């Protein structure tokens, strides 16, 4: 009876027009939410299983486990041993992959509609029946080790690894980069792996996004059949008392670089997704630094030729207050201090006078156009739904987010520039050849 009541309750279908296709959701009795978007087009479907776990859940000794685990999820269960996941997806012409961030681990496949049952079967099976053997772990540890070494054999990856320990206060959920520590990765045990699986993989710590040429009801039925029977439940809560990134002082302001360019890394505090100033700060950093026609791209890169490029991490969302990092890359030559002065000058100008309204209007217009163009790819649509569901517990935000940007005023931008980009909070690491 209790079960029946829960089922009735969760049958209430949440309907939205997230992105631009009919989209509905249902939550299974075990707490797993299913989001279905009926996107017309070819006979393929994007299937994404989002787990609310990432490197944020690691502790010393298992740094890199969330990402390692992403690899292990492709290495077999009792029912589908070894490389079966790859092989079975190959056989039906599906493309499958996964990625891990600080906050999340996402398994995604683009499968023919005719292979949906297979995708659901494989995903629900590895959600509950993963088998980690020492032999497979030994080879996969080396694979992940090579992934990390690839990163370190690239000049930018090496710089990123050298810089990373400076960015966060001790004890912050993001204090270690997702890839982790090589020595720890190479000594992971099957027990540590299974502990991570047991502690973070469950239907109520995950949700499913399906986008493609499908019928919503049939997907709900399939989801009920395959995921509905996974009974495991975890009671996971967001961490409290996370160390403050805004007051964190960089331990070093200079780093050596084995490459013939110079980088000013601008580091600043960023609110968690949806918190106060989240949208205003995103807009400001886009308009000032990172958009292709940003104020500083136009001035430093295209007009005065003082910098080669301005780069940043495009994934702006985070569960906890984070740091933003923007790299201004220049030729390694005397006189680059002009770049710092120019950046400070532009920030001060915005803090005092704001931005021309026409610039803000164009920003909104560009976002609207990008939104239409993003409707082509089922993977993109699923990604935006996933982000919205993960960070706002509401996939419909994906199509409403632009309204939040519309609400940002010039006064907001002035305030945010004066606060987050103040001399105290916007810290710079000077990275250059010895």
């Amino acid at each position, binding site marked *: 009876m209790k079960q029946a009541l829960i089922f009735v309750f969760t049958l209430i279908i949440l309907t939205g027009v997230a992105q631009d296709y009919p989209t509905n959701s249902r939550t299974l009795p075990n707490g797993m939410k299913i989001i279905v978007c009926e996107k017309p087009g070819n006979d393929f479907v994007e299937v994404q299983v989002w787990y609310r776990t990432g490197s944020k859940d690691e502790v010393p000794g298992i740094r890199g486990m969330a990402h390692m685990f992403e690899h292990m999820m492709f290495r077999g269960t009792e029912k589908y041993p070894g490389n079966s996941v790859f092989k079975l997806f190959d056989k039906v*012409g599906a493309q499958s992959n996964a990625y891990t961030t600080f906050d999340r681990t996402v398994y995604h496949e683009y499968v023919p509609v005719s292979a949906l049952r297979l995708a659901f079967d494989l995903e629900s099976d590895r959600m509950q029946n993963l088998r980690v053997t020492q032999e497979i772990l030994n080879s996969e540890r080396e694979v992940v080790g*090579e992934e990390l070494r*690839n990163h370190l054999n690239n000049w930018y990856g090496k710089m990123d690894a050298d810089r990373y320990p400076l960015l966060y206060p001790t004890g912050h959920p993001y204090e270690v980069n997702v890839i982790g520590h090589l020595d720890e990765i190479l000594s992971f045990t099957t027990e540590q792996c299974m502990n991570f699986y047991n502690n973070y993989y469950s239907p109520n710590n995950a949700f499913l996004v399906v986008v493609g040429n499908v019928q919503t009801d049939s997907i709900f039925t399939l989801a009920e059949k395959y995921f509905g029977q996974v009974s495991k439940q975890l009671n996971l809560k967001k961490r409290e008392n996370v160390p403050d990134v805004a007051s964190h002082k960089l331990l070093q302001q200079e780093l050596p670089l084995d490459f013939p360019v110079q980088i000013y890394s601008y580091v600043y505090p960023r609110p968690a997704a949806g918190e106060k100033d989240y949208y205003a700060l995103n807009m400001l950093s886009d308009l000032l630094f990172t958009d292709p026609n940003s104020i500083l791209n136009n001035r430093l890169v295209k007009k005065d030729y003082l910098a080669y490029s301005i780069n940043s991490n495009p994934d702006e969302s985070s569960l906890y207050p984070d740091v933003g990092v923007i790299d201004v890359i220049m030729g390694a030559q005397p006189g680059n201090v002009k770049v710092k002065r120019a950046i400070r000058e532009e920030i001060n100008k915005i803090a005092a006078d704001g931005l021309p309204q026409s610039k803000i209007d164009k920003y909104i217009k560009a976002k609207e156009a990008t939104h239409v*163009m993003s409707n082509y790819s089922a993977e993109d649509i699923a990604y935006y739904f996933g982000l919205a569901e993960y960070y706002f517990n509401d996939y419909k935000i994906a199509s409403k987010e632009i309204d939040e940007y519309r609400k940002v005023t010039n006064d907001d931008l002035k305030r945010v520039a004066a606060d987050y980009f103040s001399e105290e909070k916007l810290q710079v690491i000077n990275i250059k050849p010895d």
Partner: protein
Amino acid sequence: MKKIFVPIIVLVLFAGKGFTQFKFPVMEKYKLRNGLEVIFADYGSLPITRIEVYVNTGKKNETPGMQNISGITAEAILNGNTKWNRIEQDNLLYEMGSGISASSNENYTNISADFLNKDIDNGMDLMAAVLLHPTFPKDEIGEQIRSLIDYNKPSKMDIGDLANVFSDYFVFGVNNPLGRYFYEAQLSRMTPEQIREYYRFTFTPKNTKLVISGKPDREKVKKLIEHYFADWTAAYGEVNGVSFEMATIKTKEVAFVNKFEATQSALCWSKKGPEAESKDAMPFRLANSVFNGLLFDTIRAKEGKTYGIGSSYNRHTGLFNVTTQVRAEVTYETTRSFERLLKEFYDGGITAEQLKTAKVKMKSAVLAMQTPGEFIDFINPMEYPDYEKRKMLLEDIEKMDVASVNKIIKKYFVPDVYKLVIVGNEAILSEQLEKLKELKKIPINAIETNGDIH
């Protein structure tokens, strides 16, 4: 009752539903009076128009001393034109939620952009200005070349990139444009005037194809094309007839490049594959798909030697390359694993089951297309001039049988016939390198001096 009902529904909705036949759009092709070929091929349901321009010029056109002029020119046409400087042009693109990309390869240069249909007037105006009226400003070109030099110093480049560069050098040699790489002294001498001259000589209407896809208002777009492109004239008007000499690989040769302080080694094997238009191409691609799976299963999944390994076929050069990066200690072992796999593949061929999977994967690559950009890639008129033939791809895949693929394996996957370049740290690798017979050593600065292989 509920328990019975659920599986029935599932069966009705999903049972037996295979791939439906792909509906290829009708292609409309015509030439403007100046010889510019225009192709319309609608794809997709969104109100977006995709514009792609193909210019028949690439690395094949780079004469000695002019290395990378095709790449620099492709990028430089985005640096401003007689109507808009770079900042104005980028502002306009930004406002439309668009961006133009330009790149070149061995054979051609490609410029592409998506525009919402409501912005197509501005979009076409902008594409025409970019393609027809670039100004190649001196300062922009200077900055572009400076950054190329900084990012491409051989002693600082990634080992994977170095392996690719030296592989071309080793396979084609410096007398072939594909074997020459750019370097500081050579790039420093390149002038905006040389770039303008290269542009004038190769960017001509007769040498260019304009492809429109998406869901355009066709009549309107035709008028815009007529308005912006019909009067395009060029000092040189003929079709570019330049090509390059294909490589020959008849024995096993191994070369080594020392990259100081590298903790990994990069390996790049090159083998001769079929020419793109030959009858061998289709069975070869199916065989290569299976070979790829074996490389992954063995060298990554079973042996844990690498994060990634793959065999890719280049239809321009007719070569296929297997590339990977491994930790230094297992460099020699990896060469042995590759040789073993190649021999087993050559001796054993493929099974019916493997061929079936390879066919499904190849067909899926077509059937899974979503965007007009992907569709234009598929019908790329520089690579697939015969659209009717291209449309038969799915049927052609289906016709392949095990015997014909195995015959091709015997022809192209011959053991001990390849060129291998290893880039790594000699200080760590010296003992392993001694095991490689007749190893040739290439100095890391050889691409800067066009030096000999020792």
